[in-house]
């Protein structure tokens, strides 16, 4: 065994080499090939497991996501929420600060919003209520994010664990307040807040429930694009992300950048909580964020931290989610099955990035490998 290993170490069958650059069209061709390969694998699984026609299923996904005006709006609203949280986590990730606490930051922002609506809703004028809601939600989100940041900056604690733990605290707080404010008493559900007075509800524009949310998120997207690309702050955090030592050498106050960036990250998560509670759900519960705090990480990474690309990647994920739900209804399949399909598609899309960034060199003759990738994975898929 060990002898075998040693032999391989001398002469590996193939080795991975980083590509210097690839023309854009070629990169997109690989991505397209990956999507097609994913659809083929999904098709094979659909036929072997359910015996349904894969093309009918793909069509159902489109109908489920875009079929009616209502569905398109709902898709846009979900896209906006996912995008908002993805934008929030992006500066931290660009700084290589592994913030996996967006879920908790959104929840606590939502809780702050809900508490304003419940406790002050009918007592103060809207001119007081809205600013208070906005400020408290941003502060709550920022507080939730800055605690791990301060510990990281001062004592170099592990931010991954810390932000993760903060999620659980937020979830427990949400459960607690869901019970305290439950209506009817004891049911553990808050129900729609201020259902008759609509106090604290974000305004509808032209009778549309979600347009306001969309505009807010659009503004945040543009802000984030400019912030990351053109501002001094954006440059500083990118330098900290590349190398803390370089940053220090260049005279950047690394601690300050970490804390400042997480304050911003948390505040945007707080806004996401505000939009979710006051702009869409009008209630709050411990699963209000619905895992978006984690999905956002994928959206952000897939788009390589580019806010404009993030619109596309969040659209992809929301589309897959909506399509999956429709599949389970139309074909009477368990939700889990459509989630498997979404998982395969996402796996291929993430996987293809590897072949865009690296090439595989075989022993003896060197040969580019992209063609080998879909085939080998397909064989695997077919075997299952």
């Amino acid at each position, binding site marked *: 065994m060990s002898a075998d290993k040693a032999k391989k170490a001398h002469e590996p069958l193939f080795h991975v080499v980083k590509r210097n650059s690839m023309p854009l069209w070629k990169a997109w061709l690989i991505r397209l090939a990956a999507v097609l390969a994913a659809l083929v694998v999904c098709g094979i699984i659909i036929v072997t497991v359910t015996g349904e026609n894969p093309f009918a299923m793909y069509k159902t996904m489109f109908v489920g996501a875009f079929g009616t005006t*209502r569905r398109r709006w709902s898709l846009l609203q979900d896209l906006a929420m996912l995008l908002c949280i993805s934008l929030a986590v992006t500066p931290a990730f660009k700084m290589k600060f592994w913030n996996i606490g967006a879920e908790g930051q959104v929840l606590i922002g939502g809780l702050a919003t809900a508490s304003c609506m419940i406790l002050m809703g009918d007592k103060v004028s809207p001119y007081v209520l809205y600013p208070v809601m906005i400020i408290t939600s941003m502060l709550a989100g920022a507080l939730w994010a800055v605690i791990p940041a301060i510990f990281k900056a001062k004592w170099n604690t592990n931010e991954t664990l810390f932000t993760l733990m903060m999620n659980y605290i937020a979830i427990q707080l949400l459960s607690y307040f869901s019970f305290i404010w439950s209506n*009817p*008493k004891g049911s553990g559900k808050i129900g729609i807040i201020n259902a008759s007075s609509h106090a604290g509800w974000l305004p509808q524009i032209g009778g549309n429930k979600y347009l306001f949310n969309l505009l807010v998120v659009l503004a945040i997207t543009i802000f984030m694009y400019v912030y990351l690309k053109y501002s001094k702050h954006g440059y500083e955090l990118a330098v900290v992300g590349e190398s803390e030592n370089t940053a220090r050498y260049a005279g950047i106050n690394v601690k300050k950048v970490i804390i400042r960036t997480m304050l911003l990250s948390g505040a945007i998560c707080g806004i996401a909580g505000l939009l979710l509670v006051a702009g869409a759900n009008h209630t709050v519960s411990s699963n209000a964020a619905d895992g978006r705090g984690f999905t956002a990480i994928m959206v952000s990474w897939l788009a390589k931290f580019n806010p404009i690309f993030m619109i596309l990647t969040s659209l992809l994920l929301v589309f897959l989610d909506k399509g999956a739900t429709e599949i389970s209804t139309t074909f009477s399949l*368990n939700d889990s099955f459509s989630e498997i399909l979404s998982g395969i598609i996402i796996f291929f899309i993430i996987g293809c990035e590897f072949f865009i960034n690296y090439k595989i060199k075989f022993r003896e003759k060197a040969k580019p490998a992209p063609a080998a990738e879909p085939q080998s994975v*397909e*064989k695997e898929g*077919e075997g299952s």
Partner: protein
Amino acid sequence: MKKILAVILSLVLVLSLAACGAKSVEKESQAEGESESAAPASGLKVGFIFLHDENSTYDKNFIEAAKEACANLGAEPVIKTNIPEDKECYETAADLADSGCSIVFADSFGHEDYMIQAAQEYPDVQFCHATGTQAHTAGLDNFHNCFASIYEGRYLAGIAAGLKLNEMIDEGKIKPEEAKIGYIGAYTYAEVISGYTSFFLGARSICESATMSVQFTGSWYDETMEKEAATKLIESGCVLISQHADSMGSPTACENAGVPNVSYNGSTKSVAPNTFIISSKINWVPYMEYIITQVQNGEAIDTDWTGTIATGSVQLTEINDDVAAEGTKEAIIEAQAKLEDGSLKVFDTSTFTVGGKTLDTHLADVDTDPDYTPDTEAVADGYFHESEYRSAPYFDIQIDGIELLNAEY
């Protein structure tokens, strides 16, 4: 070597594509044939919104009833599972209405506000909501609540539990004062309180020394917590377990510990063959058939509908003879007959005390409002009138003999 591998791989790919192409065409034509033959006779589409999927005993019970009722009456079910209790519920309800459903049904308590929101927008579609409390005060013609007098079923299941306790006492396995029942509830909510109290009264009507400890989980569905709660109760000396929570958590814990379990929402014999005694459940088929028939005939649906043993809405599953005490079936049949003819009342005030005293008056919060104002006198003629003034339970009294271990939920 590499070339051979590549050739083999591409061959596999091509062949599998060809195979799947051929198969799918075949399937398609088959599917078309099927859908034609199974075309709904009435053309009525019924939308269903469920909180979880079949992995929850609570939702499974609804899902099966939905399919059965639709099949019986030739309606087409459109089922949406895993719909959370937020605007997603409203969106789904509205989407179902958009897609031509004449009835939209939702199964979870927290869906109610969103169903009302959709009902206001689609006056021509009937919105039916199980376990809700607001229909009788919402003032909407097309929004309806439903429930069943499940406390009667709980009481009967309690009789099976009482007999089992007596059997354990007679066999010398436990002393009479050790006949402690463990109960896992979700919240200190009227539906849960009504459920465990009626279960306890049923058990104590057979085994006089029975006591009960209730552990709340603070969640309607949390498999791990329910399992832990059951294990904790068993360790603290409970010799029989029952639950009002929706996962397989407690039955599994009971099976692992070998402690008998009286279940809810349907048989859990599959996961607990050696400990499952009996389960009470609400059979939703009668209600679903009722709403479909009313809409087919163009008639109005009751604002508040309470199913009973007589309508077939309250049911007991088959008894597991390997575990249940002898005579369980006979005792249940006897009590059931008395419940049906009215000679036996579950919440007969002579059978329990509150703070050492007999209950002779109680104002219940029947009309839901944010301040929980008690508004309706529920005690009369020597018993508590449960599920008579609205379909959802409102018995929320702490009776003597039941100990709450964590009432913070």
